């Protein structure tokens, strides 16, 4: 470990983020490289922690940030957190490098300082999020990464779609966040602690009853599905594709969206004994992966397709997590790493393609294979990894998930995962076909990007190809750092390997049929039952429409209530009933003041009688009582 690691962890990205606008102001051309330097430095710092953790040492550190309410910056670094931190910093570094060239053209219209500043802020927040042990601090950074995501989705702020998408992303995830906050607070009131390790210890020693954890457990799941875009809170991620492509690669594929999974894995020891907790995660994962894979099948926007694919793959992580600490934790983490790598690669490639073609619709692409050679090959690497083709990373990680499912007897989940793998293969191949192979009547102008953009692609491509072979290294890393991880030796399970291979074969067969009979299929999709399925899938299974209906109804109700209550009841009550009533009473009283002197004299007589009655009241009462 480097000296002052903890300080550097926080300081480098955040100070970098703060300084970027200044650098951008004084040296406009250097700000990109300044950001690269900052990202690289943080990567170095994170990498420097690896040896310690590898050797089984768990670095910890506490800074009393806001002691009064337990908001203390506590670091607890184990393999899981470090893995996420590594992904964040290294992919972050690659993305920043990529951006230097990619974002160049935006310089005139938008201030790039904002971009780099936010990216650095994001990297720093992500690192802190995964390394901290304090749930409240976790929530703090959880929100900051959401904030960066919001700001970067809406980076092209004068595009109404982007502005809307940013807001949608933040508000939707905020629903999850609110529940996460409830969970954290309820957990706090029940355990009097925000520290995950303390709570785990308390749960393990049995000093706290798990039965009361149902509410926080459910809240944590809701928090996770918001951030990781699982059903029913997944609607923000496809829209988030309005962000610049590097941001999609970094935030919406490789890092932030993994935070939800990370949270589930992190708190799993706390809630593992809560009834149905794991099952709920598994069901959410299973449903999500199926639905979004189908949506990916019919999507024609390249980035949205990748977004659906991301949701679907994240659902794998959820599903894997539901296999418990022993089997699920590692398989989930492993796929997380692999998926982060290849999906970032795919997004960067897509970015290069879109940059070059000038459109995001795959209908505007086609026949790009020869025009963008390097990009094509890198996309193929990513796509094979996504589709789980041997020997790319995805094959190994998915295989591990299948095997874990079988080992833990989750057969239904196994079938769902396998079927989704088939769908995955199909939409991947469709994508490749539409973008690179499909023949077009007209020519599309396209060319490979510059070397600065290609370098990150190559690095990630190599990762997608080779990461699968590092399964055991990673396992060693996990077991060394006290993570209670066991793992199935994937290849020992012939069923799972067989399944993987069968899927590959069937997938290719179906795809062959698709390529040859594409027109027929398109016609089929417009008729009969399939058409309604098709339109449902292409409309995102009406989730968006439902939410819009909900919000619209709410606003309409709000308006009604405003008119009925604020204007109607309160104002009318105050002005008409109370004030008007009093004045009416006054008008009545007014008649008593006749202005006639004779009446006034009668008033005097009445007054005299009243006074006499009151004065003699005791005597009268005495008299009456005496009479009785």
């Amino acid at each position, binding site marked *: 470990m480097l000296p002052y690691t903890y300080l550097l962890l926080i300081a480098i990205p955040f100070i970098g983020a703060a300084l970027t606008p200044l650098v951008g102001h004084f040296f406009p051309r250097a700000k990109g490289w300044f950001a690269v330097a900052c990202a690289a430095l943080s990567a170095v710092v994170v990498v420097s922690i690896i040896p310690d953790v590898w050797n089984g040492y768990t670095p910890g550190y506490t800074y009393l940030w806001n002691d009064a309410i337990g908001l203390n910056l506590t670091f607890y670094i184990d393999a899981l957190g470090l893995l996420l931190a590594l992904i964040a910093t290294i992919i972050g570094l690659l993305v920043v490098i990529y951006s230097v060239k990619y974002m160049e053209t935006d310089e005139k219209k938008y201030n790039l300082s904002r971009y780099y500043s936010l990216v650095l802020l994001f990297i720093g927040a992500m690192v802190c999020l995964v390394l901290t042990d304090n749930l409240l601090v976790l929530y703090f950074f959880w929100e900051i990464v959401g904030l960066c995501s919001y700001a970067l989705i809406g980076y092209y702020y004068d595009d109404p779609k982007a502005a809307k998408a940013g807001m949608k992303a933040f508000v939707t995830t905020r629903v999850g966040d609110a529940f996460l906050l409830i969970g954290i607070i309820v957990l706090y009131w029940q355990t009097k602690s925000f520290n995950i390790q303390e709570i785990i210890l308390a749960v393990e020693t049995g000093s706290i009853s798990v039965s009361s954890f149902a509410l926080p457990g459910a809240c944590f799941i809701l928090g996770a599905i918001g951030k990781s875009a699982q059903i029913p809170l997944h609607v923000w991620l496809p829209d988030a594709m309005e962000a610049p492509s590097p941001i999609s690669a970094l935030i919406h594929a490789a890092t932030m969206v993994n935070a939800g999974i990370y949270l589930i894995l992190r708190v799993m020891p706390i809630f593992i004994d809560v009834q149905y907790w794991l099952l709920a995660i598994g069901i959410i994962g299973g449903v999500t992966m199926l639905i979004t894979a189908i949506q990916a099948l019919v999507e024609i926007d390249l980035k949205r397709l990748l977004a659906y694919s991301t949701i679907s793959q994240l659902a794998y992580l959820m599903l894997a997590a539901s296999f418990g600490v022993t089997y699920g934790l590692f398989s989930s983490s492993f796929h997380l790493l692999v998926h982060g790598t290849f999906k970032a690669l795919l997004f960067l490639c897509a970015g290069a393609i879109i940059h070059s073609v000038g459109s995001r619709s795959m209908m505007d692409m086609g026949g790009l294979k020869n025009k963008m050679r390097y990009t094509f090959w890198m996309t193929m690497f990513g796509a094979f990894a996504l589709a789980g083709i041997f020997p790319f990373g995805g094959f190994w990680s998915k295989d591990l998930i299948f095997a874990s499912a079988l080992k833990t007897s989750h057969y239904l989940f196994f079938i769902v995962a396998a079927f989704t793998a088939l769908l995955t293969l199909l939409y991947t191949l469709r994508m490749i076909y539409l973008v690179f192979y499909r023949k077009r009547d007209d020519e599309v102008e396209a060319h490979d990007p510059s070397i600065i953009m290609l370098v990150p692609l190559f690095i990630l491509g190599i990762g997608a190809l080779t990461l699968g072979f590092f399964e055991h290294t990673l396992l060693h890393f996990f077991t060394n750092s006290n993570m209670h991880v066991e793992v199935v030796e994937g290849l020992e399970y012939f069923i799972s390997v067989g399944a993987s291979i069968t899927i590959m074969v069937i997938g290719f067969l179906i795809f062959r049929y698709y390529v040859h009979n594409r027109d027929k299929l398109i016609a089929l999709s417009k008729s009969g039952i399939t058409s309604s399925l098709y339109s449902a899938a292409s409309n995102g299974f009406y989730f968006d429409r439902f939410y819009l209906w909900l919000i619209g109804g709410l606003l309409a109700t709000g308006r009604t209530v405003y008119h009925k209550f604020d204007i109607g009841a309160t104002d009318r009550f105050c002005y008409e009933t109370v*004030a008007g009533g*009093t*004045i009416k*009473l*006054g*008008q009545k*009283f*007014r008649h*008593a*003041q006749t*202005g006639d*002197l004779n*009446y*006034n*004299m009668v*008033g*005097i007589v*009445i*007054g*005299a009688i*009243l*006074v*006499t009655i*009151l*004065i*003699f*009241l*005791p*005597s009268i009462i005495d008299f009456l009582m005496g009479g009785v």
Partner: protein
Amino acid sequence: MTPIIPLIILIVGAFVIYPCSEALRRVKKEYLVGIIAALFFTVALWSTLVIAVDVWAGTESTYCLAGATAFRITLRADPLAIFLGIIAISMGLIVSIYSINYMKEDTRLDKYYSLLILLVTGIVGIGLSGDIFNLYVFFELMCISSYVLVAFRRENWEPIEAGFKYIVMSATGSCIALFAISIIFAQTGTLDFALLAGEISNISNQTPLLAAVCFLIVGFGVKAAIVPLHTWLPDAHAAAPSGISAMLSGIVIQSGFFAMIRILLIFSGTSLTQNFGFTLAIFGLITMTVGNIMALVQTDLKRMLAYSSVTQMGYILVGIGLAFEFGEIARAGLEGGLFHILTHAFMKGLAFLCAGAIIYRVGTRDIREMKGIGRTMPLTALAFAIAGLSLAGVPPLSGFMSKWLIYKVGLDIGGWGLFFTGMAVFNSILSLGYYLPAINTFFFAKETSGLAKKAKEVPLSMLMAICILAAITIILGIAPMFGLRIVDPAVEFMLGLMGGA
């Protein structure tokens, strides 16, 4: 210094006004006669203060005009008299300053000022009288001066109608009060305050005396504008010249009430069934509520203020009535009641003077015609706002301070007392209901009405009077101890009489 000195000064003043006025008329500066009146008031105030220092120190001074022990005419300077005297003379002083410009266009100023001085003389005399009949005489002096002053602009319809109503009702009241005095005289054979208490406790049959109490309350109640005896008040207050309205509202109706409690005090120390405190408090509640509700619907500024006076009398009645009923425990009621007489004199005086100033410039009494007057007459309107908020009991103005003491008395008593407090608090919201719209109209109305546009700030003497009263209203709110310093000896004195059976 003997207590007759202020009276002599004032009476001399009333007569000196004539030659002075004659002399000034020759140089066409008749209106300056107000300065002479103010001078006399100043001297009288000074002499009262000189007496006050002695009285507060504990030496009551008595001046015997004539008579033997059983029936004598005495002037006795006790803290209560000093209290009333100081308020009355200062109000007279301020009103005479105000009237210098306000009455500039009127004729017969010699009569106006001498009547004003006589009015004040009557009030001072009410305080100083050592026996009931003397008190009655001074009371009538005050009444008669005020009859003439109300109907001073006798060419117009309104003063005549109001004046006539005022005379008839007030004279009837006086007669009833006098009837009560005659009963007391018949039963006890004396009218001297010092002797009465002893005589009363010797009397076995109390029914005539209780009847006398009834007639006292009704008789002086007409003057004190207790509902339902108040009907003369809105007419008279609205019809009188504003300076006189200020006097009427500020001190004359309180003097009626003062005369009543002065006599009732004798009974409070005796074994007589003391139900009258409760009666007063009940009438207080009715009075304040009716006054407020009536004021709510007025569009005539002065009439609104007049009804507000009815309300404020209600507060005083509640405070002092409860004090009569409960004695020492309800001390705050006496403090509050007397303090409210003090603060009300100044704040209602201020309100009427401002109203007079505005009417003087605008030429109408309709509030709706005064839109935006705050822009053309900022100081006057601001002073009116201070008076209005103070009357509505908004701190930190003096009205809140005195009302707070009246709220307090109900709490000190507990039980039923809480009801009185609750009603009093509720009424302070009601009173905001007419002051606030009025202030709003003055300042915040978007368009300035045609009449208000032509208005400008009033002449110096009026402004001076207004500013003095506004300052007093604020100062008594921030530092009520200045006021309570005058009130406190009077409270002690009254408590002494109540407990001294």
